[in-house]
């Protein structure tokens, strides 16, 4: 059977700079040192539940505390509720990008982040179907063990193997920067998600089938909550399942404005494939973060909360700073916009640059919040790379529950939950379907390998058959 395998895997090299590639220069321009494997950055003990903010959101503050949930009980309208979710997004962005070394976010420009200590999907759904270990080192593809490459310690791998790991969902096509290079992607999941998969044996096909054989079993990933002191027993605050999808472009240290990107030194790996014919390749590169999805499941929003960010130079650049757009070239106004490159798609071959515009503008509320948070980052840490990221929007279910038809005193999850905004796309991650893309409506179709409800996560269908020793 033909299976498109644009396997684009990126490995990080710790100690990359020390190994002779020191031209990356100052700390603001060089990728941050890798965090130790398997570090879980738990919220600091002082983290408190996230109150519903009220305009004008004066509570913007840089904090390592990942917000647990949005308490949404009494919103008057969607437009009045939206800022609560957008602030949740910015707080999540800052906390997830918080340094793992005890410093403040962006104080040295760039920094290693909490979320990069999470495990990637390939570390959870192993090729042989065996049980994963949180933070365990991973076998490097043979192509990456070439004579000219040093032995290295794994930090992360950006892979692109099945369904949405291919970067753009459902074969809608790759995204190409102005130098003709393919954008690469990674998916990370937090310890809460990992533990649920492990504890329920969902990391291989047989485990998923066994789980599903009990009719009452439905995949139900952990949900975040602000907790409640009023109930008995008291419900403590908790972080829910967090899944992060990131998009990266290859940087040229001599040409790109490295001080405007969160960076990583990695091995860019293209897995081989017969159908279509693609050759295996592995290459050491510095990559910069251009797109960033945060998906967080919470009890009040079982359709999850979907936050999405982009690097600010993606589509417009910054004229004042002399920075051209990365995915748009104003010198070619007649280029067809938002169109995938011609087939065949092969990441080993340079492709015509994509000409990308944002189909749906960032709304005024998010724009104002972006100014506020970017300003805060800039004022506290002038060199911070994080000031060069912007929130696109946050999608959330406006009507998460309906009364249970069988027992109106109870409530059940309400399908898509009437998501707001109705569509939301990241120009780096849903480039060609921005106009119609709805995170929740698409991810509601996510299933296990057996076609059972996958709790809005396509990760579960990556599970492989268990290989008997």
């Amino acid at each position: 059977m033909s299976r498109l395998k644009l396997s684009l895997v990126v490995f990080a090299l710790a100690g990359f700079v020390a190994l002779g590639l020191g031209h990356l220069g100052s700390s603001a321009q060089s990728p941050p040192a890798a965090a130790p494997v398997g570090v879980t950055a738990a919220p600091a003990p002082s983290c408190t539940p996230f109150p519903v903010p009220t305009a004008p959101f004066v509570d913007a503050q840089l904090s390592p505390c990942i917000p647990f949930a949005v308490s949404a009980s009494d919103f008057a309208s969607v437009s009045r509720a939206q800022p609560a979710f957008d602030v949740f997004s910015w707080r999540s962005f800052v906390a997830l990008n918080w340094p793992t070394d005890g410093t403040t976010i962006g104080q040295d420009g760039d920094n290693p982040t909490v979320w990069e200590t999470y495990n990637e999907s390939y570390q959870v759904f192993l090729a042989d179907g065996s049980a994963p270990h949180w933070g365990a080192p991973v076998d490097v593809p043979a192509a990456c063990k070439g004579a000219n490459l040093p032995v290295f310690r794994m930090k992360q791998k950006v892979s692109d193997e099945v369904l949405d790991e291919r970067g753009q969902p459902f074969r809608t096509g790759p995204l190409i920067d102005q130098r003709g290079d393919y954008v690469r992607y990674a998916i990370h999941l937090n310890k809460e998600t990992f533990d649920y998969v492990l504890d329920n044996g969902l990391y291989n096909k047989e485990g998923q089938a066994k789980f599903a054989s009990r009719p009452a079993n439905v995949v139900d990933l952990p949900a975040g909550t602000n907790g409640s002191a009023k109930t008995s027993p008291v419900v403590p605050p908790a972080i829910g399942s967090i899944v992060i999808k990131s998009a990266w472009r290859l940087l040229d240290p001599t040409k790109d404005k490295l001080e405007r990107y969160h960076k990583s030194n990695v091995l860019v790996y293209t897995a081989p494939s017969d159908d279509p014919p693609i050759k295996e390749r592995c290459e050491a590169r510095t990559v910069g973060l251009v797109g960033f999805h945060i998906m967080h499941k919470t009890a009040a929003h079982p359709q999850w909360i979907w936050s999405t960010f982009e690097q600010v130079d993606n589509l417009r650049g910054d004229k004042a700073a002399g920075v051209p757009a990365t995915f748009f070239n104003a010198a070619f106004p007649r280029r067809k916009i938002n169109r995938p490159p011609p087939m065949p798609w092969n990441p080993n071959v340079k492709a015509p640059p994509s000409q990308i515009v944002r189909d749906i503008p960032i709304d005024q509320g998010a724009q104002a919040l972006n100014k506020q948070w970017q300003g805060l980052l800039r004022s506290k840490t002038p060199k911070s790379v994080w000031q060069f990221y912007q929130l696109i929007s946050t999608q959330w279910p406006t009507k998460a529950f309906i009364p249970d038809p069988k027992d109106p005193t109870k409530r059940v999850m309400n399908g898509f939950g009437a998501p707001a905004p109705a569509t939301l796309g990241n120009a780096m991650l849903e480039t060609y379907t921005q106009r119609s893309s709805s995170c929740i409506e698409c991810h509601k179709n996510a299933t296990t390998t057996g076609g059972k409800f996958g709790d809005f996560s396509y990760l579960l269908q990556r599970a492989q058959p268990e290989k008997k020793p």
Partner: protein
Amino acid sequence: MSQEKIYDVVIVGAGIAGALAAYKLAAAGKSVLVIDGGKRTPDSRDAYMQQFYLAMAKTPESPYPNYKNTPVPLSLDIGNWKTERALEDAFKEGYTPPGYLIQKGPLPFCSTYERVAGGTTWHWSGTALRLLPADFKLQTNYGRGIDWPITYDDLEPFYCEAEQEIGVTGDTGNQGYHGITFGKDPKDPSKPYAYPMPEIPMSYLDKQVAQGVGSMSFDGQVVSVSPTPQGRNSVPYDERRVCAGNTNCIPICPIQAKYDATIHIAKAAQHGAKIQYRSIADKVLVDPQTGLVSGIHYVKFTDPDLPRTPTAPQGAFKEGVAKGKIYVIAAHAIETAKLLLNSATDQQGLADGVANRSDQVGRNLMDHPVQLSYAFNRNPLYPFRGPLATSGIESLRDGPFRQKHAAFRVEIGNEGWNWATGDPYTTLNALVSPGRNSVSGPNHTVQGGLFGSDLRNALNGFVTREFRFGSLVEQLPISENRIRLSKDYTDGLGIPRPEITYDVDDYTRSGYAAARKFALAVFQKMGATDMTFVNDADPTAFQFTDPDDPGAKPETYLLNGAGHVMGTCRMGADPAASVVGPDHRSHDHKNLFIVGSSVFTTTGTANPTLTIAALTLMAADAIIADLK
């Protein structure tokens, strides 16, 4: 004319036959050019979805383009066919029928097709049944029609391959009826063959019908309901999602859980096949010396809605010739025949068109005329949930009765009376309008003027009990059921439009009558109330009198199209009586292959898509062998 590259293979048409051929040939390292008349399909199907949502009549064609240069037949044209016919006769000069097909009767051809990459698989139901072994030997077994030059066993490995490519759900354990056999697992010959995906669950409605049918016999056959193998995902497959039961396979699956041929167009392109859009092939050129096809003449246009008139801007149309070592025509049954007929020249042997020394091109046009019977069940069945059809009754697809009347399969619809009456719209409107209003002729009328909870309860009470059978009746090859080139009318490019003469013979009419009788028998057994209404004045009405019943009066039936356009270039061993041989090669031109349902020798009763795919994959092997 511009000088073109010489490809290994030039394919006309990017539907399922062209797409699968292009994919298999490109994957085998052959250079492939596909010419298609449609515009490049949108990057996201949401453009089509929007057109569907906003269409008043949600016909199979409603989401898709209908351009002046590549017009398509429309379901809504069929009701007007007699009027069009009369107007044509009255105003011979200066009148152009709005419908693309020029219907000459005596009955209208009721099926339609798309002219866009992906073809009519955009709105196939996903039903992926194999033909029966007996379907290949109709003449031998029952003295009817003619035999195929290949057998079920010849095609069986390619059915397996097609099921893998399309992604078919099913359980071989309940599909081995009427002599259907399954070979070995292609990946592991020590194991029996299994469908690539598990069976899609039967709907609640199916199960209630199955229970109602219980154990009964008809025409000497024991009747049972069985789940249908389907080209839609029951588990993640080929990087596509599982079916979410949108109940919209026709006209469009919103999430591509159902296979369509754009998938193999993309796969072919990933192997380097070139797809040339907005290009209509209008002539197949033949080298007078060798008798081989020497090129495909095409017209490429910038705007598919801009007719080719003397005032059209320069550069809006470009003619060219696509050249290859081998040529494959995969333009669907009507367009393929039209192209071959339109290629007639005064060269020797080409007076009636290319590949037409047998005079069979355009003849033996067939469909599966669909007998619709619909009823109210006593208890709610909850239609409008799940794929459009998840089960059927396959028991009457074969039997000794085929000596006398056509076989049929019964599709059990999951969409109430949507096809038959346009529900839930019709019932809602009838319940709202004042007075007593009809939903199904005089057979079912409702008291209108309702509002509030009365309206809710009435709509629910009626529609949740609706169900329908659609019996796909076998049709035999008939020489005079044919397409010709219209002498009077052309499309926007000046190419003659297809003119159709079509009728349904007594073998099929008799099968139709049996299908109706069968539906009534099941309804009665279930305690359901038949609500089928037949208007004698309907432009699709035809009569049949049961010859075995001396007291029988003529009964009227309504013709419906299945969208299964078959025949027109039939496959056979005898060059004098068929267009292509068993390897799909033209009897007349060694480097010309014709693929798709146009080659079907007879129709059987299986929805044709899976057989089209299997035959095409078989033909691709012959082409690859030729190119070695």
